């Protein structure tokens, strides 16, 4: 999956390019997984273990750690290969079946 990345926008015409930052989906995934990871690790360390449910494994702790790794992976990936937004984005027609910001009137057949 990581190798499939062709996220850098090719059309980089004029002016200084700016990065997608917060809106880069990899940062959003990384943030959510990271927050979940922290909460689950804390729950695993401080909360009840409930070993009778999990068969003795501290499931919250291990899942939390795994999520932290995933979160860090996405954050690093986004940092190493940032998406550059082209200066002039041609606004295409809105797609009424595909939710997106409604900017123009939906097309009439």
């Amino acid at each position, binding site marked *: 999956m990581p190798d499939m990345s062709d996220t850098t926008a090719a059309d980089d015409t004029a002016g200084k390019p700016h*990065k*997608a930052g917060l*809106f880069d989906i990899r940062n959003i995934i990384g943030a959510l997984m990271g927050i979940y990871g922290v*909460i*689950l690790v804390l729950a695993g360390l401080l909360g009840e273990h409930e070993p009778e449910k999990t068969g003795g494994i501290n499931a*919250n702790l291990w899942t939390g750690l795994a999520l932290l790794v995933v979160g860090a992976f996405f954050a690093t990936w986004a940092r190493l290969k940032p998406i550059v*937004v082209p200066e002039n*984005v041609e606004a295409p027609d809105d797609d009424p079946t595909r939710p997106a910001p409604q900017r123009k009137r*939906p097309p009439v057949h």
Partner: protein
Amino acid sequence: MSSDTLIDATWLDYLLVAIYFGFVLGIGVMARRSVSDSIDFFLSGRSLPAWVTGLAFISANLGAVEIMGMSANGAEIGLSTFHYFWVGAVPAMLFLGVVMMPFYYGSKVRSVPEFMFKRFGTGAHLVNAISFAVAQLLIAGVNLALLAGIVHALLGWPIWVALIVAGAVVLSYITLGGLSAAIYNEVLQFFVIVASLLPLTLIGLHRVGGWNGLTDKITAASESASSASEAPAAAQQLNAWPGEALSGFDSPVLSVVGIVFGLGFVLSFGYWTTNFVEVQRAMASDSISAARKTPIIGAFPKMFIPFIVIIPGMVSAVLVTEMIDLKNGGTPAGGASGEGVAYNDALLLLMRDVLPNGLLGLAIAGLLAAFMAGMAANISAFNTVFSYDLWQRYIRKDHSDDYYLRIGRLATVGATVIAIFTAQIAMGYDNVMNYLQTLFGFFNAPLFATFILGMFWKRMTPTAGWVGLVAGTLSAIAVDRAGAAGVFELSGQGTAFLAASVAFVVDIVLSIVVSLVTKPKPASELRGLVYSETPREDRTDPNEAAMPWYQRTLPLAGIALAMVIALNFAF
């Protein structure tokens, strides 16, 4: 926490759910306000990389069907459920990417009916728009029923209150803009679901003593089963082929034919290649090459999803007291519907028994997200087809934009209300998968027949387009009713497979016959719609040849195909 609820969630679980909804609504609000030109760039369509659209593509499908239906199937009939993925999804996804995507991407259609209009004109368009709208309402009912089931399991509310509340939640999600960033949400949802189902599977397997413990327990349960039990023999549950438990055929040969043709060809190709809720994800990618790779990249995770939905279902059937009782022919009380435990409850009950608070919240967030997003997608697809394909084209032409937007809002509310009623139909099915496959047989199988013939045979006429669709759907309904009336006896999802196959054959035969006696469209109008009339450069991406092999469509599809064949031999 009150003890009369199915699942005891604590503040920790609710916190995890709340964080998820905070993210989703936050993205939605930002997308609506378009505060940043970069989010404009991402959401404006045709700008996303293939890995994002590929994940969104399978995530759009990773809702009610996959999670509840497949785990229910796993609990009921075991490993032959894998066919839904390895025979019933991956080959069709590869076909979609390699063969059909260029036509969709190239013709820039926005809905299934619109493609029908371009290819066949008014008749097929009207038929397809109506049947698409009806299908979306029925499938929205499935998602709503499952959503209400979780609300009921969590809070213990009566099921009808849960239905209305769940409907209201979906409405506010649509209104607050959660749908604006649907692709973002779907990708997030994918990670949340995997993050909760993977631990569920591992812990579940650990509890039953690993894979060997699971097979031993299934064998033991099957040997000691009471006469009231309708569960298939252990050997059938533990091998994917020949899958008699799935198809309902007694003969292994017929069973394999039924699975390969009924499920593998007609139902799955019909579903994956004509279901625009999924196909549209590919339309948001940045090039024809990325659009073609979208379903192919999606095929890789799709191959492994069955391990985290079917196996928990199987574990549930040997670990959870109520499920053991149900499989043994009993009728345990409780369950998400409040009217007795059903196979649909397999996953929820396993979550209750093995997930500690914390992970439980993660799992609830994932399930709620999947069903809500699924229903919202159905409703918005209905809304579009109703307002523009039906209302504007056939009832009130040439009104202002505001007028159609108002109609659209009314349609959204109306569809949600109707879904509360169609949810009742869905709840009448013990295993929701049976119901969904029946619906796909009615709507997708004839549509696929018409699509595939229309794409490859330029002689196919506009009249044949609508005649085939109508006759195909009617014949599938006839087969289904005959099965319900007891004319023939097929358990499992065999009736749905048969109905779909009959619909496909009837549609193809009638379309050919009608085409031979009616007048085709002139070839000049078929460019981009019919294979032989579309020049090669319209179908391929000139930049693709320069990419390394692992970014090209065909090598990727080849690897996926080889992997799925290997998996079929392994199980």
